[in-house]
């Protein structure tokens, strides 16, 4: 399945890092993820909310790369490429939707949009 066997050779010259070092990376990604989700739930500017979701994506990407190195496996890095792509597609969509809303009502405050309520 893994196609680049020469890349495996390159990786074989590297040491997998110890679980102690892995912990640092995972801690970083967990903190990023937490910042993202807390920011998403507390901030009300739509651009900032979107940045927070991007932060969550990148947290997952960091975790993927760290685990990939820990297991000496390339698929984590491959996954990150796809995460980046989907993140780009989502940002294009977010931009479009936010512009659409902004043209209707000149604010980016999410609380100004309360037409749909119980």
């Amino acid at each position, binding site marked *: 399945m893994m196609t680049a066997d020469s890349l495996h050779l390159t990786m074989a*010259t590297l040491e997998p890092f110890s679980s102690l070092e892995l912990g640092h990376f995972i801690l970083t990604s967990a903190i990023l993820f937490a910042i993202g989700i807390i920011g998403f739930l507390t901030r009300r500017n739509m651009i900032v909310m979107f940045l927070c979701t991007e932060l969550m994506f990148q947290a997952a990407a960091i975790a993927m790369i760290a685990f990939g190195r820990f297991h000496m496996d390339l698929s984590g890095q491959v996954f990150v490429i796809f995460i980046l792509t989907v993140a780009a597609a989502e940002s294009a969509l977010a931009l479009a939707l936010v512009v659409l809303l902004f043209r209707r009502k000149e604010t980016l405050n999410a609380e100004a949009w309360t037409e749909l309520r119980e």
Partner: protein
Amino acid sequence: MYTFAFDLQSYAPIGILIIMALVFGAFNLIATHLLGPTRHGEEKEGTYESGMEPIGSARKRFNIRFYILAMTFLVFDVEIVFLYPWAVTFAKLVPQSPESAMFLGRISFFIGTSIIAYIYAWRKGVFRWD
């Protein structure tokens, strides 16, 4: 572990590239200065800012078309991310083997889908500026 051998010769192509870039840039500047007509005027001496008026508040509105173009660009920009790993792997395949044909087929399909999207955007009039 790697031993870091400093081999000057392997940097020769980069050196040549830098020299070529410098020569090309210098040649163009000098040639336009010598050959081109010299005119002055308000428009001519203003700052070029991709077709926008560069004077005034930076907080003014952009034309909505910038967003459409930016979004289109974003999608195609990200495509490069896939082409790099593909190119690195493809160079290592045995030429004319079934695997390399399959690799070529995959990337052709991938680029093909992007081209379809591009043509659609074109027909839709995304690139028209009026």
